[in-house]
């Protein structure tokens, strides 16, 4: 019964993390579409939620790669392994909530890896972690994601504005808005495929550790897929307005051709990296895309202080999630790793942290109506931009 209860808590923690992943990463797909008024905020997040749900079922490739290569597989196995996985998930979820509170788009995957690293080090020491794996799977892809997608989005935006000179302001604005809906939907679908699988993999590992699933004949049960897809879709549907605001409005002022360029470049980079088996962070790809699109428009301005804050958050995501994950493991260990008490205490602690941050966030709430630009006139949009693009003028 002991391990059964801990297993249930691990599954609950995984689904809670999946939920935070959903609302944290909605911005990746929909921020620019909302910022340009291509979609109403509520409509955008509902489309994103539906596509995240569908995306979770598209691919059935092994979902456990996140737990391989960085943390030795033996650490996440067995009854002790459940405590490590629960602490890791709580560390990742807590970091996701902290960055959400501070309106910073950071990588949920890096938070999960950080949580695993911290809990594993707390359990068996630094030998559990491969530094080479961290650089290979986290540091290098993080930098490359920004550079690749930023470069592609810069070129795409420059090309789009060359064409717009012949199109005219209104035709361009209206036409690219339709395009944005398609490209943002593709990013949502890709996000569902990538990120829901990571949580499925974690739950599957917990099921293997407790003997509910055979390691030799690895499959993700349908109920696990359904739960993960639903948790992510529900999280997405709640709308992470705080991060959507940062991604869509604070990095740069986005016009619809820029939004389309940023999302198309992001979708292409995400899918190309997945296809060639080189997983890049969706958040960093899209952030790079938005920056590239900001620089690609003549007169466009990227707000570097905001980018600086994001860069700091990206750098500290892994160690911070690791610290929280490690701390949670130690708290759980006080009650003994083979007892239910530790697992229950850290689950309650996580719930308290979530409640506390949610309460604090109400002091400076950002709502869907704050972000709605569907009824903005071209004049209002130009005023918002602070400058009129020479190509659109």
């Amino acid at each position: 019964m002991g391990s059964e209860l801990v297993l249930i808590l691990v599954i609950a923690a995984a689904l809670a993390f999946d939920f935070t992943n959903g609302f944290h990463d909605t911005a990746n797909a929909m921020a620019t579409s909302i910022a340009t008024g291509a979609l109403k905020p509520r409509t955008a997040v509902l489309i994103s939620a539906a596509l995240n749900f569908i995306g979770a079922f598209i691919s059935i490739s092994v979902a456990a790669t996140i737990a391989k290569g960085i943390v030795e597989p033996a650490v996440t196995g067995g009854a002790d392994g459940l405590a490590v996985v629960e602490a890791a998930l709580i560390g990742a979820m807590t970091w996701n909530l902290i960055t959400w509170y501070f309106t910073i788009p950071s990588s949920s995957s890096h938070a999960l890896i950080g949580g695993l690293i911290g809990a594993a080090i707390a359990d068996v020491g630094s030998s559990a972690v491969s530094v080479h794996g961290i650089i290979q799977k986290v540091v290098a892809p993080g930098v490359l994601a920004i550079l690749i997608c930023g470069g592609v989005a810069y070129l795409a935006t420059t090309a789009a504005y060359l064409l717009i000179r012949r199109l005219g302001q209104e035709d361009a604005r209206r036409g690219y808005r339709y395009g944005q809906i398609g490209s943002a939907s593709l990013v949502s679908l890709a996000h569902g495929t990538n990120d829901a699988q990571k949580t499925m993999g974690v739950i599957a590992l917990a099921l293997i550790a407790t003997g509910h699933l055979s390691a030799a004949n690895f499959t993700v049960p349908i109920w696990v897929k359904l739960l993960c897809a639903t948790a992510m879709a529900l999280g997405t549907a709640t709308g992470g307005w705080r991060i959507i605001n940062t991604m869509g409005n604070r990095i740069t002022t986005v016009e619809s051709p820029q939004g389309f360029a940023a999302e198309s470049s992001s979708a292409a980079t995400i899918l190309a990296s997945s296809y060639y088996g080189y997983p890049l962070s969706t958040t960093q790809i899209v952030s790079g895309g938005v920056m590239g699109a900001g620089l690609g428009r003549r007169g466009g301005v990227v707000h570097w202080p905001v980018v600086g804050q994001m860069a700091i958050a990206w750098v500290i995501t892994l160690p911070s999630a690791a610290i929280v994950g490690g701390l949670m493991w130690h708290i759980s260990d006080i009650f003994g790793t083979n007892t239910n008490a530790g697992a229950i205490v850290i689950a309650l602690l996580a719930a308290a942290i979530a409640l506390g941050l949610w309460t604090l966030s109400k002091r400076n709430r950002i709502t869907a109506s704050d972000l709605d630009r569907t009824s903005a006139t071209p004049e209002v949009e130009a005023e918002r931009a602070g400058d009129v693009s020479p190509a659109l003028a």
Partner: protein
Amino acid sequence: MFVLASPLVDWSAIWKICLMALAAGAGTVVIFGFMLLGLKFAGTSEAHGTQGGSRVGGLAVAVLCGGICIGIIVLGIYAMTQK
């Protein structure tokens, strides 16, 4: 430096990703722009009462470019299922 970094970064995959992202990402934006131009050209020709050729030409460009954009989306979804 390149030799040291090589084991940590799969450069052959990175180059392929760069090329594919450039072709599909920037390519889609350009082709979509031509589709809008084609539609505008067809619309303008009709409004000005220009006969046959230029309107059909504009529509043909729009349909061709729209078809390519849809093809790229389908390829993207196919790539997702092949992971």
